[in-house]
């Protein structure tokens, strides 16, 4: 008796939650978790889109084959280089820009809108633009030649390609980090800095002891989101 009334009460509590959240969770289960498990299971079989034979269980063979292949380690190191290089550069540029724009400025909103365009553009279009600029006879090499520097094979030389990707990625995503850090900076109370000036702190000290600790969380969010995105990005490399 008590048990059934309790569950009825629970039902009354959980039913609306289920109705509101259920469809969303169900949809994600069907189209994200199910495919993910499917991927996981396929990874232990010899299934292939191009070979129609029977699918059999082959244990860890795929994993062993992948880990022992050179391409795998090459791709891991490429990803790491791009992630560290691009996110690092974006962070430094973004922070400098944010510190610079964190002041009253005529036409600031206009500048911000113009600066943020790369982040919102179609990534494929950005890849295309940079591919065009990095062509053997493209604009970048033309400029280098103009200043007496030899052309660089931006798209062909495997070690330079990573740099090209980092440059393009930095161009696209610096505004993202910049905007987030700017939001973080503008939330730091002005009175902190006034107090620091009274105490005789230098600009560097007030940056190190006030600004950085205050925007710690913001920095973490920005860098984390970028690292996750860099690791999974695909389109720019494709083009």
């Amino acid at each position: 008796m008590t048990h059934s009334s309790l569950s009825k009460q629970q039902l009354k509590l959980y039913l609306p939650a289920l109705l509101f959240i259920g469809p969303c969770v169900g949809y994600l289960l069907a189209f994200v978790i199910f495919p993910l498990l499917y991927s996981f299971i396929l990874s232990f079989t010899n299934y292939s889109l191009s070979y129609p034979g029977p699918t059999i269980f082959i244990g860890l063979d795929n994993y062993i084959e992948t880990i022992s292949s050179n391409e795998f380690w090459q791709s891991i190191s490429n990803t790491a280089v791009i992630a560290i290089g691009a996110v690092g550069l974006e962070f430094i540029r973004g922070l400098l820009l944010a510190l610079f724009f964190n002041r009253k400025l005529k036409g600031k909103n206009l500048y911000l809108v113009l600066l943020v365009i790369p982040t919102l553009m179609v990534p494929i279009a950005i890849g295309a633009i940079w591919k065009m600029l990095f062509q053997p006879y493209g604009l970048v090499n033309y400029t280098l030649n103009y200043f007496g520097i030899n052309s660089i094979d931006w798209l062909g030389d495997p070690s330079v390609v990573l740099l090209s990707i980092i440059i393009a990625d930095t161009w696209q995503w610096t505004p993202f980090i910049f905007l987030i850090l700017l939001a973080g900076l503008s939330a730091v109370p002005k009175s902190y800095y006034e107090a620091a000036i009274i105490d005789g702190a230098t600009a560097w000290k007030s940056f190190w002891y006030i600004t950085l600790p205050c925007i710690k969380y913001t920095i973490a969010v920005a860098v984390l989101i970028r690292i996750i995105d860099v690791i999974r990005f695909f389109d720019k490399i494709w083009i």
Partner: protein
Amino acid sequence: MDNTTNYTFSKFNSIENHSRRIMNLVKRLFLIGTIVLVLSITLFPIYWMINTAFKPKGEVLASVPIWFPQNPSLENFTEVIGGTGMAQGGMRFFLNSLISSSVSTVFALIIGIPAAYGLARFRFKWNKDIALWILSTRMLPPVATIIPVYLMIRSLGIIDSLIGLIIVYTVYNLPFVTWMLRGFFVGLPIGIEESAMIDGCNNLQAFLKISVPLVKAGIVVTALFSFVFVWNEFLYALILTRINAQTIPIQISSYAGVKGVEWGKMMALSTISSLPSIILAIFLQKHLVRGLTLGAVKE
């Protein structure tokens, strides 16, 4: 005596004034210089895209770059829109992008708004865990699930159709919509709904008549963002479409063929495809940070 001190003082004063004025000038020049530098780094590639798009074929690959189009022509634009590319039949890929972006945004909102509200309002076990789990599905690399998704869509017989794209894009935007709106619902004072419930509204009525209208602005912001995310999406469109359901990003990449790259057309379509983003940047100024961080950072 008095006179001399006064004199030296004022002289000193004027020198100081003078040097301060120079300092101010230097500071202003530095400010302006930095802004010009930063803007030109950001805008030059975009300018080059537009510049190339307006060049006739011969000028695109000129060995000495042509900085301003001397004979601006619309041939690239007319050819791109005229549909001589892979997607025969005029502006089909343009419509495909438009339809898949807007319909999937609407679906994501229909499923996501109640979920966001539920996660923001109902207190129950695992509330936060479910919210985090929803966010985590967004962080997953699409490559991890793309083959099974492809198989699922194929077994439903909707490869290369807008329906398939819309289903997948709804999944793509659902975590974003839910997280963004959850933030907006959490920001609403609960008292308004409570007083509505005291007046005899039930949960659903309070939700539909009170809460949703109050976060209307948030819903518009979220919708615009999720539209652009789908508009920009490439991988799913590449895997799940062939000819009929091709979207703009696929069409852009198709100009890089084996016979060489048609830069003019590529840039013309890139220019067209960037328009929604630029419009978004103007309209969403104040909400950019929140949208781009999935609601993690609020301005």
